[in-house]
């Protein structure tokens, strides 16, 4: 349980009622809705939506398949480009990707085609008898994949498809990464994340070993020795800190820790509830945290950000969700002090008002206090340095705190590839991670096959 929040009360609703609050945020399309929506697609040539999709899904083509009642064909087309097409359909910020590019955004066209929901419809209704992709003849090559998140799963699947054997080393008890532990519960509901993992592993040739932590019981050097190639899909496992006094007092918690707990909870009624919550941050994780706390029954949820609305990382769509849940968005306020009661627990936070002066964020000297039972930090994730602590890992070239990779996802170490949030490339999105994993697998495959030919 979340130690630092144990003193808080529990939600007043029972588990069944609370579970209802965490059903699909965007309910799936019915067959009729899918048919109507599919018919709105103009089947563009050189379609802008495809160019906007980080994982290169042939969107007009799969929508046409749906419209022609070939749902399995649609799903196979999606999955051949993005093996996690089911979760991407749920978690992708389509409003800034494919759907933003849809030509039907034009003011004369009313609204974009609901590409995400159509993708979900196809993948959810495909009903394959067997895994749709057949492995190539065994290459005899073995590849280590570190991390069973979207990047690692995508990479492993593509490698297995090409006939290689893969061992995934995963720290947590379950595979799936953020889909399993980090996404708002109402975006990926029930056990979908695990069902998707099962589907990915169905291809064969992939072994997942749990409790394997790079930098603890695993080192990059060993992996390089034992395998023909290594892929690092480590994610960003450390939450940024405020650097304030009392940051570790009861009542202060990283939002990702709470979301993880919430997603794994069998009884939502046993989760600590902060009736008055402060969420610090401006990204989608901050919104997820605030909205979930509101759905658990919190009466007063404040999302506080030190800059303005226009600077927020969360999309307009996400901000709208927050507002719908009566989450208050407070901007231009910077955390100054964690306020504690006489038992040493959080009772609120003092903020300094901020403003931009000459392009620099500065405090105005004015402060204010917000009462709160808990403070959730969602000010960004950062690299867990422990993971790259062995000798070989320390030599990896970095870009800021991330691992530097080229367009083929190659790191500075020969035979070592990386992808997803732990690299500096692209946006920190599930779909981006899937694409990285896929590209890395293709690069690994090409390199290994080249070596075979040369030998």
């Amino acid at each position, binding site marked *: 349980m979340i130690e630092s929040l144990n003193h808080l009360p529990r939600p007043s609703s029972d588990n069944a009622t609370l579970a209802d609050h965490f059903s699909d945020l965007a309910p799936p399309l019915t067959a009729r809705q899918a048919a*109507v929506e599919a018919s709105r697609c103009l089947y563009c040539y050189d*379609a802008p939506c495809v160019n906007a999709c980080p994982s290169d899904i042939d969107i007009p083509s799969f929508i046409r398949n749906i419209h022609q009642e070939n749902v399995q064909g649609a799903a196979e087309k999606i999955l051949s480009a993005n093996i996690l097409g089911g979760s991407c359909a749920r978690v992708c910020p389509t409003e800034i990707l494919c759907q933003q590019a849809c*030509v039907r955004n034009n003011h004369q066209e009313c609204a974009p085609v609901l590409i995400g929901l159509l993708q979900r419809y196809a993948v959810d209704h495909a009903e394959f008898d067997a895994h749709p992709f057949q492995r190539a003849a065994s290459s005899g090559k073995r590849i280590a994949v570190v991390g069973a998140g979207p990047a690692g799963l995508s990479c492993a699947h593509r490698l297995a498809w090409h006939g290689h054997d893969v061992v995934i080393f995963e720290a947590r008890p379950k595979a799936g990464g953020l889909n399993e532990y980090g996404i708002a519960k109402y975006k990926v509901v029930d056990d979908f994340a695990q069902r998707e993992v099962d589907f990915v592993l169905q291809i064969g040739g992939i072994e997942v070993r749990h409790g394997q932590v790079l930098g603890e019981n695993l080192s990059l050097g060993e992996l390089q020795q034992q395998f023909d190639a290594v892929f690092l899909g480590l994610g960003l496992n450390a939450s940024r800190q405020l650097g304030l006094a009392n940051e570790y007092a009861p009542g202060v918690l990283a939002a990702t820790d709470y979301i993880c707990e919430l997603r794994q909870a069998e009884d939502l009624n046993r989760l600590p509830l902060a009736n008055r919550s402060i969420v610090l941050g401006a990204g989608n994780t901050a919104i997820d945290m605030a909205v979930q706390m509101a759905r658990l029954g919190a009466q007063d949820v404040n999302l506080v950000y030190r800059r303005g609305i226009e600077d927020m990382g969360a999309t307009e769509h996400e901000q709208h969700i927050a507002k719908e849940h009566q989450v208050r968005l407070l901007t231009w306020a910077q955390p100054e002090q964690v306020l504690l009661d006489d038992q040493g627990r959080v009772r609120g936070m003092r903020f300094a008002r901020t403003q931009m002066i000459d392009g620099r964020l500065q405090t105005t000297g004015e402060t204010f206090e917000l009462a709160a039972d808990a403070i959730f930090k969602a000010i960004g994730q950062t690299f867990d340095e422990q993971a790259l602590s062995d000798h070989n890992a320390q030599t990896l070239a970095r870009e800021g705190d991330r691992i530097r990779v080229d367009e083929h996802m190659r790191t500075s170490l020969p035979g070592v590839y990386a992808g997803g949030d732990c690299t500096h490339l692209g946006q920190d999105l599930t779909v981006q991670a899937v694409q990285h994993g896929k590209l890395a697998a293709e690069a690994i495959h090409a390199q290994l096959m080249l070596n075979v030919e040369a030998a």
Partner: protein
Amino acid sequence: MADLSIEFAGIKAPNPFWLASAPPTDKAYNVVRAFEAGWGGVVWKTLGEDPAAVNVSSRYSAHYGVNREVMGINNIELITDRSLEINLREITQVKKDWPDRALIVSLMVPCVEESWKAILPLVEATGADGIELNFGCPHGMPERGMGAAVGQVPEYVEQVTRWCKTYCSLPVIVKLTPNITDIRQSARAAHRGGADAVSLINTINSITSVDLDRMIALPIVGDMSTHGGYCGSAVKPIALNMVAEIARDPATRGLPICGIGGIGSWRDAAEFIALGSGAVQVCTAAMLHGFRIVEDMKDGLSRWMDSQGYRSIADFSGRAVSHTTDWKYLDINYQVIARIDQDACIGCGRCHIACEDTSHQAIANLRQADGSHRYEVIDAECVGCNLCQITCPVQDCIEMVPQDTGKPFLDWLHDPRNPYREAS
């Protein structure tokens, strides 16, 4: 307001919108509802000799567009399945109650003089305004030597028409089947037989679709199917052409034409009238939406006529006929070129790929720095085929602009490139 009333082949009606002989005009109940809704006339569903026809179940199937809109309906229903006596009694009463509406009776009896001689006086006695000869029904009746079996043989058309003119004083409208090669042959035969008008088209032989699980075409009767008659908006282009062919045929010049085939809006009706129709008949659109559609058709037609300065249907009937000709008389030197309104363009690329793959490679795909596309017509390559305009989802985005070529009118008959040209 424009006057929508007409006098067609001697039959008066308050407007040119009539219901065609079909299920909507099967009995008094429907016809009264139609008149209440405002239809100018009806053609009562085809009467025949007793015993009445027997119908099967099921009877209709459809061809759908991408949004499940019905493009066309196929039916295997026969002529009336009620006795002659009931129909005649109802017709008499309805005409009495609705004297200002046109009430035409559709007829189909065996192709023998005695049969026609027997039924015509009975129909005339109802007070009906005219008769329409069903020479077009493509299913069920031809097997019995009626319907399209007659309509496909010009000599029979002429003969039966003549019998009708002999034994009946009412105007005779001959309904033509499109299931022939040259519609003018049927129209000329009707004209020779003394017809007061022709109406067209009747339904087209069709199979709309196949149930691929059961491997049976639709509509399904038990575990079998049969071809039916096709109607609805999908047949409109075929009907319009046949109407125009007759309208511009010197042999039938002046023969009144009642246009039928996929009419569902005032614009459809106006088009049929412009190509030579004096009245129109509607069926499928009413079957899909109910009789209420006539209100919008009357209102729309009347407003459009006002906007054009037409005071009556006759003012514009046939106005497009003189602009319809044979290909050989078209101006070879006329040239249009596509122009894309870049402000209206939504960047879907459909014009580009259509032209690139299947036409003249005349639309360039210029990728912009922001990842969007700009599509531009390459004037020198454009032949003015209209395909880009057709494939564009945005109305009026692509305009076909006439070019000043500086060349005089030249048709193929006089074109130097024609090895068989006529000396000018």
